[in-house]
């Protein structure tokens, strides 16, 4: 555990040093503020908390942004050290390969945690100070922050898998972008396209639910839009998730699985690798 913490601290320090964390905080904070200040206009006289609206728009945006940030953070983690030759030296030290992966992972998840905590959290504080609706719906906002961290952790794990799999940094960067496209854009497009063509003949609600569920980004979306009544009403999907049998625990389990499996695969490939 001590070794893991030493390695995590190093990643954390690197993140602070190269202004990575600062940039991510500013990016997330500004977006959260902009979306909620601009997006609160259409609330009108409907009895919906401003924060709920913010959660909807932020969750919709985070689905794109957080995976991108996470992949950018992760794609270089292993292949970069292989290429520069620092990994070779590191592995002659009394650390196991398992500890190297877990240390880096902990460090990168912590970087993301700091970025989300201060970026989104800071925006929340400013919003409650500015707005007059008080802190109604802060639970939904907190869930959004927490699940965003989980979504990020999923994509850091996926980024590691890319990083351990490819031979060159450039390939890793390209593959990471491709991965982002598939998970965040193409999968949903494809799913809805098939659904439209199918017109409900082959793909019933059950199969569709499963197809939604196996995507970590859709799980994230459903989790945020359906767990709290205020949010789901504002999003116009009240009751849909629970009808489809998607409980919060199930959605979170799916995301956890998307963290653990790529991480295990990364570890397996790393153990086999010869330097």
């Amino acid at each position, binding site marked *: 555990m001590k070794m893991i913490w030493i390695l995590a601290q190093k990643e954390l320090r690197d993140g602070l040093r190269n202004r990575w964390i600062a940039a991510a905080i500013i990016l997330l904070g500004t977006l959260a503020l902009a979306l909620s200040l601009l997006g609160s206009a259409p609330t009108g006289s409907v009895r919906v908390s401003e924060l709920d609206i913010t959660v909807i728009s932020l969750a919709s945006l985070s689905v794109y942004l957080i995976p991108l940030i996470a992949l950018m953070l992760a794609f270089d983690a292993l292949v970069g050290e292989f290429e520069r030759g*620092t990994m070779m*030296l590191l592995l*002659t030290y009394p*650390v*196991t390969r398992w500890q190297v992966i877990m240390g880096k992972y902990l460090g990168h998840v912590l970087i993301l945690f700091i970025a989300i905590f201060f970026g989104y959290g800071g925006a929340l504080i400013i919003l409650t100070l500015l707005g007059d609706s008080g802190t109604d719906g802060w639970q939904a906002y907190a869930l959004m922050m927490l699940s965003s961290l989980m979504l990020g952790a999923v994509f850091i794990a996926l980024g590691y898998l890319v990083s351990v799999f490819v031979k060159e940094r450039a390939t890793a960067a390209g593959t990471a972008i491709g991965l982002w496209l598939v998970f965040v854009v193409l999968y949903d497009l494809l799913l809805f396209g098939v659904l439209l063509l199918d017109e409900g003949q082959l793909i019933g609600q059950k199969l569709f639910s499963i197809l939604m569920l196996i995507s970590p980004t859709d799980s994230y979306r459903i989790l945020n839009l359906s767990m709290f009544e205020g949010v789901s009403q504002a999003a116009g999907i009240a009751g849909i998730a629970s009808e489809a049998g998607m409980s919060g625990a199930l959605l979170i389990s799916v995301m956890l699985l998307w963290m653990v499996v790529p991480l295990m695969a990364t570890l397996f490939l790393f153990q086999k690798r010869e330097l």
Partner: protein
Amino acid sequence: MSNNVISLQAVSKTYGNETVVRDVNFDVQPGECIVLVGHNGAGKTTLMKLMLGLTRPSTGTVEVLGGNPAFTAAVAQRLALGYLPESVAFYEAMTGQEVLAFYAQLKGASYYECGKLLQLVGLGDASKRRVGTYSKGMRQRLGLAQAMLGDPQLLFLDEPTTGLDPLLRQHFYELIDGLHKEGVTSIISSHALNEVEARANRFVIMKAGIIVASGTLDELYQLAALPVRLELSVTEGEASRVAESLGTGVNIAHVNNQKLSLSCFKGEKMPLIRHITGLGEVVQDLQIMPPRLDEVYSHFMQGDGL
């Protein structure tokens, strides 16, 4: 279990179709200083990586400090191990001090020791600068400092003096000598034959993945059967007369008015010297030149050792 620090038995390593190390048998006793010599691509670095557990042998067994270095369980053994890779790379964004402190933490060495080592390798003033700004020689010194962290019992130094200027090389070898006096075992790979000649207990000459010769310098001379060269200065005009008197067992390479170059094999050397000293006042000076390591080396490299 033997008391060997390192023991390699019938070790081969194949990457794809290419055999980089072939059937290597190799033992190292505690306190020895072994120098690996060989052309580029002879398999020296691969051999080191095998001993460090970074790669696994295709066939054969590797044992370092009593265990297989490629096993996860070997982690504890790595506490007693220092490694300076060929063209060492560091985390560029960190300062020299931070880099060393990071490695020290992993090895359980103290912060105090970092400072001491930085002074020792002459990086005390540059320790607060980013490694990205370091010159090749400074990186190499930082590399040595990290290899020396935590009082290792076994050092692997891969081409340690490349990129160092002559003064630094000297300083570098003084450091290594100091470690040897403390009983540290070391494996050094080098191209700079003249530098390592005086330092090694044993040389291992590699060629295309095979150990073609190994032993002390003397043993290698005998194996190579290289002649000893003698240079003679004689009274002016007497050179050809002296040459005639030497007889047939001696190979006379060159004669001029007052100088003779001779060569003979080890067994004939002493009789020849006695004969020369018996010639009296005519001989003004005699220099005996044993074969140098680079001659031994090129002998083994040219030979059809495959």
